[in-house]
């Protein structure tokens, strides 16, 4: 797998090598065969010629011996006899159907030559010079016949092997032709194979290139697919994995960016509300001191109720200034809400009727500051103020499994569906007259940000049947960032 391209290249090289080796071996074999045949043919001629030479040699040595019968010359004569007999045996190998007759004659001629020579020697030893000379003459004649017969035999050979020689020439021509055809075939096959082979390497690369191009254009959703079994496919798989990882990272970054955006919005909202509260607290210490003085003066003058009310106003004001950017306990919130109700009671007297049903065990939960007061205020503004008869407000805190349910209900004219929708979708619907300057939608936003939950607040209402705001506060907070975000200021 990891050296697959190398393997492919090796395969190509091996195939080429194999083809070349095969051709080389075939040609060498063929060449060798032809060479052997040539050698055989040459051998035939050489052997025949050898006989002629040997016979002439024999006559010469016989002549020398007859002229000068020395042991040395006799040795030479014996040697030449040996050589001619050897040549005769070699010639015997050359027999074939066409020259059987001539060759037998030829060999018999050689025998005759040897016999005649021997006869000449015997006559010589018996001092019959004339007979010896006659035998020598005969031997000379036979030697001449041998020469002639050699020529005749070679002539026969040529005729016998004529077709054979022509065959050789013909075949060497055919071999040339074969060479050309073979060259064409191999060239063609190699071209096709190389094309196919290079395609098998370049096609995946091309696909990979295209995939990379798509990625560089920012399209991370296209799968990288490469059908091959080599390194390229491995590369492609890795590339695909990288694409998936990048894709995941990008979506994560997008989520984070969204979160950041929300935090930013939260910050802006806080700033806005604080700015508003600042506008209304020109000199808090002066105001608190004045209120204290007023409360004490009212008490001294016997107006105890007035004194209490002023204390409530002062407490509410202080809370409003201090606790806006902090989470507080539900207990604190309820306390502030009571102070607010006390103040409003002084205004509306019997027209404002508050019914409270609080599970004390739930009062420790954390809650954003100034969340209950604006909602209660909202109920007072819409359900109590316009009515001549006044109105009832129910405030309930109930324990749940993992959430605490806070309900604020009034029996006012209620809200339209569109109004509810616009509040829940956090569209800032500014309605003046809020004591703290914090509207309903601001509360909704802060609650959602604080808990990181969408369903933390719900409104049930209809025209003519009152409004019920339900908050479901988790006992433990989901997101901690709310606390820290304002600290960054």
């Amino acid at each position, binding site marked *: 797998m990891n050296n697959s391209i190398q393997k492919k290249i090796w395969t190509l090289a091996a195939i080429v090598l194999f083809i070349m080796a095969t051709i080389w071996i*075939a040609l060498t074999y*063929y060449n060798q*065969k032809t060479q052997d*045949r040539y050698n*055989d043919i040459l051998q035939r001629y050489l052997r025949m010629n050898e006989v002629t030479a040997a016979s002439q040699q024999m006559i010469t040595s016989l002549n020398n011996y007859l002229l000068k019968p020395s042991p040395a010359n006799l040795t030479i004569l014996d040697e030449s006899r040996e050589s001619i007999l050897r040549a005769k045996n070699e010639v015997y*190998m*050359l*027999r*074939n*159907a*066409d020259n*059987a*007759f*001539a060759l*037998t*004659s*030829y060999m*018999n*001629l050689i*025998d*005759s*030559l040897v016999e005649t020579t021997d006869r000449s020697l015997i006559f010589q030893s018996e001092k019959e010079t004339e007979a010896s000379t006659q035998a020598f003459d005969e031997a000379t*004649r*036979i030697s001449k*016949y041998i020469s002639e*017969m050699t020529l005749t035999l070679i002539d026969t050979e040529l005729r*016998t*092997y004529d*077709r*054979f020689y022509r*065959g*050789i020439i013909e*075949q060497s021509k*055919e*071999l040339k*032709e*074969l060479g050309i*055809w*073979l060259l*064409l*075939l191999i060239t*063609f*096959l190699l071209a*096709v194979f190389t094309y196919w082979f290079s395609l098998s390497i370049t096609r995946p690369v091309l696909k990979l290139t295209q995939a990379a191009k798509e990625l560089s254009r920012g399209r991370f959703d296209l799968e990288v697919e490469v059908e091959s079994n080599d390194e390229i496919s491995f590369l492609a798989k890795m590339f695909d994995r990288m694409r998936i990882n990048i894709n995941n990272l990008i979506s994560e970054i997008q989520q984070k960016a969204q979160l950041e955006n929300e935090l930013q919005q939260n910050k802006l909202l806080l700033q806005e509300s604080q700015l508003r509260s600042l506008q209304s607290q020109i000199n808090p210490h002066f105001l608190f001191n004045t209120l204290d003085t007023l409360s004490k003066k009212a008490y001294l003058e016997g107006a105890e109720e007035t004194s209490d009310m002023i204390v409530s106003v002062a407490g509410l004001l202080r809370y409003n200034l201090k606790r806006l950017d902090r989470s507080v306990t539900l207990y604190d919130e309820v306390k502030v809400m009571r102070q607010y109700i006390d103040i409003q009671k002084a205004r509306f007297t019997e027209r404002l009727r508050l019914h409270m049903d609080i599970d004390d065990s739930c009062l420790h939960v954390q809650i954003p500051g100034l969340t209950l007061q604006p909602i209660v205020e909202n109920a007072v503004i819409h359900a109590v103020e316009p009515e001549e008869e006044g109105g009832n407000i129910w405030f309930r805190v109930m324990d749940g499994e993992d959430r605490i349910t806070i309900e604020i209900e009034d029996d006012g004219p209620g809200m339209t569906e569109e109004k509810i929708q616009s509040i829940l979708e956090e569209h800032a619907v500014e309605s003046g007259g809020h004591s703290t300057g914090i509207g309903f939608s601001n509360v909704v936003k802060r609650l959602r940000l604080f808990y990181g939950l969408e369903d933390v607040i719900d409104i049930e209402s209809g025209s003519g049947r009152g409004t019920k705001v339900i908050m479901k506060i988790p006992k433990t907070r989901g997101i901690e960032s709310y606390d820290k975000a304002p600290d960054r200021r």
Partner: protein
Amino acid sequence: MRKIVLAVLGIICLTLCYFTFLSADKAFRSDWQLPQTAASGQTQHRLVLITQELDTSFWDRVGQGALEQARKDGASLEVWGSYGRNQEEFLKKIEIAIDSKVDGIIVQGLDSEAFKSLTKIKAAFYGIPIVTVANDVPMAESLRRTYVGSDQYAAGQMIAKQLIADMGQAGNVILLGDTYQEYYQKQRLAGIQDVLQDYPDIRTAYEETEATREQVIATTKDLMNRVPDADAFIAVNANMAEAMLHEIGRRSRIEPYHVYSFDDGRDSETLFAQGKLDGMIEQSPEQMGALSVNLMMQWLRGETVPLEMDGYLTEIRMAKAMDAR
């Protein structure tokens, strides 16, 4: 598109493969086997037919008959010889045949000392049987085993009788013979003369000449000068017929003359076909060849020992110009 390309590539590949294999088959198929060495030649009897007149139609036919018979009898036979009565070459061939220790020699007889010494002494020394064919040399002089061929004496008689039948019982006959008279020519002449001497009105003029063309022409000229009223010509040596006829034709028309010869000359058949010869003795060359080989084989195998001393005669017949036309 892709399919078409693939198909074209496939076709090209197949074509190339086909031609390559065709070529390889041609180049590597080794039908050029060397002729096998024959072991059977050993047991065959080796015979040689030797003649002085290779490439004449007469001797070609003898050779044919002999070769055919040799094949039938399982002997190997070669026809050797010299061209145009070259005696020296002829004798050399005989000597080679003897020195090559062939099993039998069938030879055109030559009535010369050298021939006789070769056959009588050398061949006998090596124990090689000799059969004369077509032309005989007497047994006593050549130690031949037998003779196969025409009865030359009878042939002479036949030609003489034909002459009398054609010419009538009176006239002048010119006989042309060889200075170097061979045995078979002597016999022919004897046959002719034996017949003609019974007719007193027929006068014969016999002249001998050398076998060269110039000599024959000169002698013919001389004869015609001496015997201007000649009626008939007989060329005892068939090879002289052409030159003789040439000379006669130069002087006058050939038709009135009765011209006879034998069929073993170089131009015999041509002359006869042209109608220049009135009569020609036709022998049986194929039969001679076949019979000689057959007899030689019989002798070698020991089936007929000894062979008939006087020889085995083959058919002769008189071919007249009428037949040819």
